[in-house]
């Protein structure tokens, strides 16, 4: 069976549309009849990725590949890169500015949530070039 592929653009500095891609992906997975917990895990991880792109990276894009046994998600941006990945993975560590925190973000839970809800997570980041996060979810 050919995998199902989807691609979404995440626009920069636009909190009013952040969550659109994860919402669409959630509906698609639900329509495919996937287990509710898998759908929730993917939706949360992608939403966090979207928010990270809006806050830190001037947007980016999200690729989804749905296979019979696995969902692969690639979150790719051309932002500033992550200087210290280990630190960024710590729950509670945040570099989000005050105006972002006032919106309810910047709890330092973005990357930790992505790790928590995915079965596989690889971060490829380079300062000044961008960050690509590849996620795998078992079905």
């Amino acid at each position: 069976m050919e995998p199902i592929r989807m691609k979404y653009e995440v626009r920069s500095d636009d909190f009013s549309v952040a969550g659109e891609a994860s919402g669409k992906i959630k509906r698609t997975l639900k329509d495919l009849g996937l287990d509710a917990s898998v759908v929730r895990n993917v939706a949360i991880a992608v939403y966090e990725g979207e928010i990270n792109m809006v806050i830190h990276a001037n947007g980016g894009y999200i690729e989804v590949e749905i296979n019979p046994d696995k969902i692969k998600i690639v979150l790719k941006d051309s932002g500033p890169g992550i200087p210290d990945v280990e630190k960024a993975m710590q729950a509670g560590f945040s570099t989000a500015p005050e105006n972002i925190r006032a919106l309810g973000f910047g709890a330092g839970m973005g990357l930790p949530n992505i790790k928590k809800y995915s079965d596989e997570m690889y971060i490829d980041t380079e300062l000044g070039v961008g960050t690509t996060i590849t996620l795998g979810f078992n079905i």
Partner: protein
Amino acid sequence: MLTVKNLIEKGNMTVLVDGDEPEREITGCYCGDLLSWVMSRAQSGDAWLTVMGNVNAIGVAALADTACIILTENAAFDENANLRAQQNGITVLQTEKNTYETAVLINSLLNG
């Protein structure tokens, strides 16, 4: 069983957005304003108590599949959020009670 509709009536809630599922059962309650935290901890079917009435709160409620959002202490609800909630069929309620008082009320209705 406590439904969203029961909660509105018994809790004397103001309805800001009338969602798609008035008969949905409320199975629990979650309180919090940090969206990432809420998204990872709130359970499907919870009534979510918050003061965060922006468009992103609607996104979190949709993803976490909470039964409704309750803005406590008459917290503000912005126009973008209103629009997004209507598009997504999310019930948004408001009360003058604070989060603690509202949670206590929901607890008594859940166990009443």
